[in-house]
């Protein structure tokens, strides 16, 4: 792998731009941060070994690789006990979003609202809003039609809005 060792820049650039998004995406199937990072690492290494000269146009494939790695990880029975051990920690301390000081509460509420969505809707919302993929790319990633993808997105956004609305109203009253 001479290209990788002599010029590590391409994967690092990709890592800087995508790692938080990939991590958030991996969280859809993993119960704790450590497992999500394992899935991202596995997918990232596999992808960059196979395509050391990949450009931004190939980045959507990384989401598919993360999905595959996260699902594989979830199926791995060896890690079951470790997952169960860290599950409760994650439920009590939200970690999906950056806990910015002034928006700490918002991040926790958003994570809670996202967790309430059906899995397919949540996946589309995450890929579209934070992954910034097109509907065609999401459809290819999830192996469904573009119409299904956009419908799931609409329903997902609507459900998110409903979950988050009461919180906004309470804040206005205060």
């Amino acid at each position, binding site marked *: 792998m001479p290209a990788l060792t002599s010029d590590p820049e391409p994967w690092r650039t990709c890592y800087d731009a995508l790692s938080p998004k990939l991590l958030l995406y991996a969280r859809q199937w993993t119960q704790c*941060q450590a497992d999500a990072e394992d899935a991202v690492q596995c997918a990232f290494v596999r992808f960059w*070994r196979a*395509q050391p000269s990949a450009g931004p146009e190939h980045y959507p*494939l990384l989401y598919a690789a993360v999905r595959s790695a996260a699902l594989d990880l979830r199926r791995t029975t060896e890690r079951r006990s470790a997952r169960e051990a860290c599950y409760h920690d994650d439920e009590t301390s939200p970690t999906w979003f950056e806990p910015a000081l002034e928006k700490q509460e918002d991040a926790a509420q958003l994570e809670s609202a996202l967790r309430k969505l059906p899995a397919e809707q949540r996946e589309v919302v995450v890929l579209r809003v934070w992954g910034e993929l097109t509907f065609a790319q999401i459809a290819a990633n999830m192996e469904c039609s573009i119409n299904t993808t956009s419908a799931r997105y609409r329903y997902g956004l609507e459900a998110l809005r409903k979950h988050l609305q009461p919180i906004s109203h309470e804040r206005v009253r205060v």
Partner: protein
Amino acid sequence: MNESEFESQLRATRPAAPSDMLEHSIANALRQPTIGASRELREPTGLLRQLLGGLTWATGGATAAVLGMLWLDAEPKQTPTGAGPSELKAMPAGTFLAEAPSREVVNTSAGALVFPEEQQPARLVRVNMVERRTWANAATGARIGVELPREDLMLIPVSYQ
């Protein structure tokens, strides 16, 4: 609030950054030329091994079927397909004639994406079939059948537009 405003608000909440350890782990893994599944994807023999790995379950069934066919070959003597009526009459009562085999697709499932080196990424598609072979006894109407489970793994190229 329209949808785009709402989307902007959502996007303003940024996903949490991974731990510093992740970047170090990836860097270390990419520096090492031979580890784990990535190596299998880079080497054609590894990929072949990976593809064949899924076929192990069918090996037992296929072996049994082959043994069954060998037994049929040895016990009731087979004649070529397409024997004429006069030949049929001349055949002994225990003769079985092979009929045309048939295949039925019972399941297809799309698997993971694979990244063969210097090739387009592809999706692994698994096709499960049942192959049926039958032999008929023209004199008695008796039929003997063997069903072989068969699994084909295909790589379908994928691309993002």
